């Protein structure tokens, strides 16, 4: 079987005329182990893969076959569907499909994604029909109208000695009700017309994820635009809310209002730009970091709207919702690049060892804004420490994710309950860090912290989110977060997986869900106390 990584390592090594023994020595493993890796008898990832890539002077993405890894992950997710549970998969089947028949693998992944989206759409529709107040009201009106018409019509038909006045009355009633029903029918049909625009296979969030992953979260064109916009602001004064305010007022006649009533009663957002009135409103409780960021965004949208449009056009995003969300994401990217200019941030980050709190203070930015920016420091030749990024809501739902090559983050839904991203909710506003190890041996440093908006009223529920950065343990000593953790002591690692469904740690005490592959279920766990007689043919 042609193995993606092993084959490439072997190929590259031979083309550089390095012997297996020599390479093995350089990366600190035995030649026989390297041989197993090259024949794909052992997985390789994390720090070891980094060292091999370094020794072979090859980009880690090329070596790891990033596209194939993504495909493999997508396939894993598809095959984790409960409906495929009882199928007798071979041990390495998914990896083989990806290696031998990449197009079919892609087809399977795509089909599953479409099916999952369709299923969730159907659920959403059913819910909507059941509970939509407008539909329910319209249906009631239909029933009333028909009841009245039927009753009146029966009277006209069945009562032999109906007086003229009475006949006229009931005929009028029928007329009246029929007109009313016509309106209701139009309304009802209109409702369904709107709903039917909901087709599409993929959720908008997923579409945007794909776009960002494809571009590896680095948009050189936007970076260039950001540089020139930042230079413009710098020319007008020291960078900050005051200068941005003056600039916006001077060039565009935009006035900023902080505090006071919202532009519309009940408006749930914390800021809003009114193009007609040329006024930008901020909720009184917004932080300085938020105001600075949004003013930078406003500036970029007024000056350089084409930049984002151009990127959107280059992407494959089609649905209106996805375009709107993508425009916002790219606009945020641009704003982030203005507030946190690339070269300066990279230099400062290296100097302060990626201390996010230091960078926050220095740039008047929020934790999430800085974390975001660190992930995007991927200019070829001038990269920062490679980070992955995840954000979760308190329900455990992942709402934003930028992957790290080699670290397979779940695409959607939830992740392993042991991850720091969830632990952070238990220690709000404090940075929580952990060294984790996946079952393939790869090790990462996870850094997580909750973030939240300040509430506007006593009754407004505070919904924090949790943001997590992840980097290979190999890079952890370049960060301040690796200090104090003994990263060389593997026994201190927290043993984790991507999510219970996909995780192969059958003996994990924190397991919440059955794994895809039932093989290796620990006796005594997750079943009755007295083991049932196992029928023939069931896997051990």
């Amino acid at each position: 079987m042609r193995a993606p990584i092993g084959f490439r390592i072997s190929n590259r090594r031979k083309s550089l005329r390095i012997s297996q023994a020599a390479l093995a020595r350089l990366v600190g493993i035995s030649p026989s182990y390297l041989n197993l890796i090259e024949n794909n008898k052992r997985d390789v990832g994390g720090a070891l893969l980094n060292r091999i890539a370094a020794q072979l002077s090859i980009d880690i993405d090329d070596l790891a076959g990033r596209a194939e890894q993504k495909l493999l992950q997508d396939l894993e997710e598809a095959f984790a569907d409960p409906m495929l549970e009882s199928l007798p998969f071979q041990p390495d089947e998914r990896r083989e499909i990806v290696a031998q028949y990449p197009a079919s693998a892609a087809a399977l992944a795509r089909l599953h994604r479409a099916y999952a989206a369709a299923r969730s759409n159907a659920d959403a529709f059913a819910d909507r029909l059941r509970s939509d107040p407008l539909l329910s009201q319209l249906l009631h009106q239909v029933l009333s109208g028909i009841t009245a018409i039927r009753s009146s019509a029966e009277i006209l038909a069945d009562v032999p000695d109906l007086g003229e006045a009475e006949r006229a009355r009931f005929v009028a009633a029928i007329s009246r009700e029929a007109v009313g029903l016509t309106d209701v029918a139009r309304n009802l049909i209109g409702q369904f017309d709107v709903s039917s625009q909901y087709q599409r296979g993929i959720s908008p969030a997923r579409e945007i994820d794909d776009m960002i992953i494809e571009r590896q979260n680095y948009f050189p064109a936007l970076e260039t635009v950001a540089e020139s916009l930042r230079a413009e602001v710098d020319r007008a004064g020291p960078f900050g809310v005051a200068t941005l305010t003056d600039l916006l007022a001077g060039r565009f006649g935009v006035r900023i209002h902080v505090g006071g009533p919202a532009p519309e009663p009940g408006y749930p957002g914390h800021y809003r730009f009114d193009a007609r009135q040329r006024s930008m409103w901020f909720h009184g409780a917004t932080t300085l970091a938020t105001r600075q960021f949004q003013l930078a965004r406003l500036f970029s949208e007024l000056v350089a709207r084409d930049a984002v449009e151009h990127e959107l056009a280059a992407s494959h995003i089609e649905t209106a919702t996805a375009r709107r969300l993508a425009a916002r994401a790219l606009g945020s990217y641009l704003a982030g690049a203005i507030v946190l200019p690339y070269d300066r941030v990279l230099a400062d980050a290296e100097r302060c060892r990626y201390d996010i709190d230091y960078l926050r203070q220095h740039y008047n930015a929020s934790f999430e804004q800085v974390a975001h920016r660190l992930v995007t420091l991927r200019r070829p030749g001038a990269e920062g420490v490679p980070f992955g990024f995840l954000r979760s809501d308190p329900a455990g739902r992942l709402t934003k994710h930028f992957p790290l090559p080699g670290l397979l983050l779940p695409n959607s839904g939830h992740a392993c309950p042991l991850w720091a991203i969830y632990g952070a909710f238990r220690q709000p506003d404090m940075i929580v860090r952990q060294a984790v190890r996946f079952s393939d041996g790869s090790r990462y440093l996870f850094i997580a912290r909750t973030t939240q908006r300040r509430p506007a009223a006593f009754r407004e529920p505070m919904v924090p989110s949790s943001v997590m950065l992840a980097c290979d343990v190999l890079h952890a000593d370049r960060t301040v977060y690796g200090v104090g953790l003994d990263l060389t002591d593997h026994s201190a690692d927290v043993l984790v997986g991507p999510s219970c469904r996909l995780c192969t740690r059958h003996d994990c005490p924190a397991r919440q869900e059955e794994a895809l592959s039932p093989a290796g279920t620990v006796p005594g766990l997750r079943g009755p106390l007295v083991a049932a007689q196992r029928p023939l043919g069931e896997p051990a």
Partner: protein
Amino acid sequence: MAIDILIAEDEPSILESLDFILSRAGWTISSVSDGEAALVAVKRLQPRMLVLDVMLPRRSGFDVLKQLRSEAATRTLPVLILTAKGQQQDRRIAEELGADGFVTKPYANAEVVGAVRDLLGDDAGAA
């Protein structure tokens, strides 16, 4: 002055037809079009039975029924419920609250007359 039937229904056309067919069947009728008025009218007019629509403004039909059943004077007042949407659910609730009969919209006029006759007995005069 006691009347035979009090109708609580807010749709005017439906009310008109109900009034017509029940009067025609020989019963004396009075009507109200919201829940609060229904409770007041039951006390004042002391009807022999109540035809009660579920969807009423001010207080829902179920609310009215619950209130009536909680007072000694009206605990045994025969109540006919007119249900509309979500039929299983409404029927179950009406039963639990102590309704004596139901008719589901849209109905045939004969159904209503029949149901009333069941609750009042035959002594209302010929149809």
